[in-house]
């Protein structure tokens, strides 16, 4: 396990570069992101451990970051003052572009993985905005009317946008639909809906709605999305089931809210989570053949289970990301303990 200290700054998000296996970006904030500056770290993995290649200081806290998919040196940040900034890491100090349309904290940014010419942002102001890096104004505003913690483009379609928000809904927007009063909204799935009853399986009890903090699209199955949040439970949904289909898998286990979820880029059933309970956990959703036949928790559903956990963080674990390159299993996590950890999930998996 490799370690790096983001002295004086509490980590909020960590992302591997999609271009280099040795480069990692960390969005962090002073004073736990409540008040004060933010700092974007560009870290290099070298034979001598983790070194700082560069950092950028910002006026307000940074809550998320996303690498450009089209330019290896460009990277976005999501800021507490409602701004989104684009930095070029070959330059010093200042961003090359800044956009300020959001009325409140921007909590996520994500680059379009298919189109590569657009990116999006989501904010506590209850909107998701779509941007083109060469334009001054946003291209589209997608209202969610609820504090939106996380939004993404589908990794399989350039025009499919998903968002989860504090009203406990997973929303899907299809930008190909004509402009109308629905603002491209095509589906709103209640995340707290109980799993669908099936023969031999008793219907599950409903749970009250709670804030959804994170979600991620499966990299192999183009209709599967995992969501999690304040109710501590990870759920996966198949968007083909529609709004009332209920979750496909329910994975209870975290002791506090789940802050970040990310599907493996290598295995279709494996996902990684980071939580306020200070652990990062690796899960299977039960979709792979031969995995999981026991249901230890009455809340669990779908045959998924926890495969292992990493409990080295000593404060809230807020960010986690898989390395796209090399042996499948390397990942990086950050947390409020001012630490970045690079580790191999295979080392924490129970045999």
């Amino acid at each position, binding site marked *: 396990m490799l370690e790096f200290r983001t002295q004086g700054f509490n980590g909020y998000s960590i992302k591997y570069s999609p271009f280099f296996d040795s480069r990692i970006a960390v969005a962090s904030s002073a004073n*736990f992101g*409540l*008040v004060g500056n933010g700092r974007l770290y560009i870290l290099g993995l070298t034979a001598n451990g983790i070194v700082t290649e560069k950092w950028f200081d910002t006026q307000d806290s940074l809550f998320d970051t996303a690498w450009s998919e089209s330019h290896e040196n460009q990277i976005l940040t999501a800021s507490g003052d409602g701004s989104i900034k684009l930095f070029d890491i070959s330059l010093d100090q200042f961003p090359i572009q800044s956009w300020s349309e959001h009325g409140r904290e921007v909590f996520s940014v994500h680059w379009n993985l298919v189109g590569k010419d657009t990116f999006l942002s989501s904010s506590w102001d209850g909107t998701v905005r779509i941007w083109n890096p060469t334009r001054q104004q946003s291209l589209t505003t997608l209202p969610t009317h609820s504090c939106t913690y996380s939004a993404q483009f589908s990794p399989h379609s350039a025009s499919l946008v998903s968002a989860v928000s504090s009203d406990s809904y997973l929303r899907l927007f299809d930008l190909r639909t004509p402009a109308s009063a629905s603002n491209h909204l095509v589906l709103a799935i209640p995340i707290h809906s109980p799993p669908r009853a099936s023969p031999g399986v008793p*219907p599950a*009890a*409903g749970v*009250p709605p*709670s804030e959804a903090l994170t979600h991620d699209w499966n990299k192999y199955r183009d209709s599967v999305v995992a969501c999690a*949040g304040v109710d501590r439970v990870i759920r996966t949904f198949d968007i083909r089931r529609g709004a009332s289909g209920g979750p496909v898998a329910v994975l209870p286990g975290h002791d506090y809210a789940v802050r970040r979820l990310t599907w493996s880029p290598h295995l279709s059933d494996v996902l990684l989570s980071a939580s306020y309970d200070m652990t990062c956990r690796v899960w299977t959703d039960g979709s792979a053949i031969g995995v999981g036949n026991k249901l230890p928790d009455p809340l669990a559903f779908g045959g998924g289970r926890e495969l292992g956990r990493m409990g080295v963080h000593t404060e809230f674990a807020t960010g986690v990301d898989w390395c796209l390159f090399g042996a499948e299993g390397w990942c990086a996590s950050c947390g409020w303990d001012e630490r970045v950890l690079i580790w191999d999930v295979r080392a924490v998996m129970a045999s």
Partner: protein
Amino acid sequence: MSSAQSRLNQLSSHVAGKAALTAKHPDDIVVTCALRTAITKGGKGGFKDTPAQDLLLGAFKALIERSGIDPGLVEDIAVGTVLAPGAGATEFRAAALAAGFPADVGVKGLNRQCSSGLQAVVDIANAIRGGMIEVGVGAGVESMSQGYGPGAVSELSDLVKAHKEAANCRVPMGVLSEKMAEDRNVSRPAQDAFAAKSYQKAVKAQAAGLFDQEIVPLTVKWTDPKTEEEKTITVSRDDGVRDGVTAESLSKLRPAFAKDGSIHGGNASQVSDGAAAVLLMKRSTAERLGQPIMGKYVAASIVGVPPLLMGIGPWKAIPVALGKAGIGKDDVDIYEINEAFASQCVWCINELGLDESKINPKGGAIAFGHPLGCTGARQISTLLYELKRTGGKVGVTSMCVGTGMGMAAVWVAE
């Protein structure tokens, strides 16, 4: 609010449950009307000649009138009761029809001893949450004047009796509570002080008119025991509430269950008659129908304890319900814990470390009575009106259950 403060509130809502708990969502199960009849002394009070079904009929009629709901929109009614034969299934269906609910509306009676009223309300909330119905009524009723007697507890077979713990299910409440008070060191002065406070709080609340909103006056026939003359009276007050009760005055009463015991008529719940009803639906339905929202149902728990330690039920059930709601004991503004006996209530409060000023602020069953099946539904109206009046948010209702169980539920007033 500064931006740092609002950011802190937002982030802390991720870990602390209370902010998330009070958030409003379209599929919350909400209470749009909660009311009760007065609670009157068994065998002597205003309802002594009124059958349980008439009490229920009165509560139902008032519920329809007060809420303004189209009775045809109600899909199911659950009524908790303890003493009615067959859980009152026949008489309650009849009472619902007489009250103006059309024949399309389902009715069931159920019995989970002293928590029957709460169980009925929770059953309806779960049926709404599960999608079985959209609008429902949970209720509770008891006429202890007419139903209380040796038949209330069934005989046990030889086979069942041979099991020691099973045989304990028939030990009378007073006897086992006496034993528990002794074993768990709840002294008589502590019980008397708690009981006297219940009376004093109830007297004060009654004088201030704090029960007026929840009580619906009922006009009933009543036979004067002295003259044998039948009169028509309107009952709108809890007649068990007695003024001038102090720990001093209670200390003079003779123990009821053991010569050297500590439990007596003044520090145990009264034998009473009464009914209560609660109208529930989803928030989205309430908004569509224009129903005013009093509060929402969050979570409930049911736990078992040894039959002889029946009284510790709330101690075990409350933390489970709080856990389900994701909050701590200090997040709760008011606890309505049924005062079956001062001994068990005092023990539970002390053991849980609850703030005594949050417990039963308008008095409890010691002061105005415990009509068995009604109590669980009665606590909800008492709680929600008091939370609203005091500006509180989160409330818990709980009670111990005969044969050794505890039940608790978490509510949020709006």
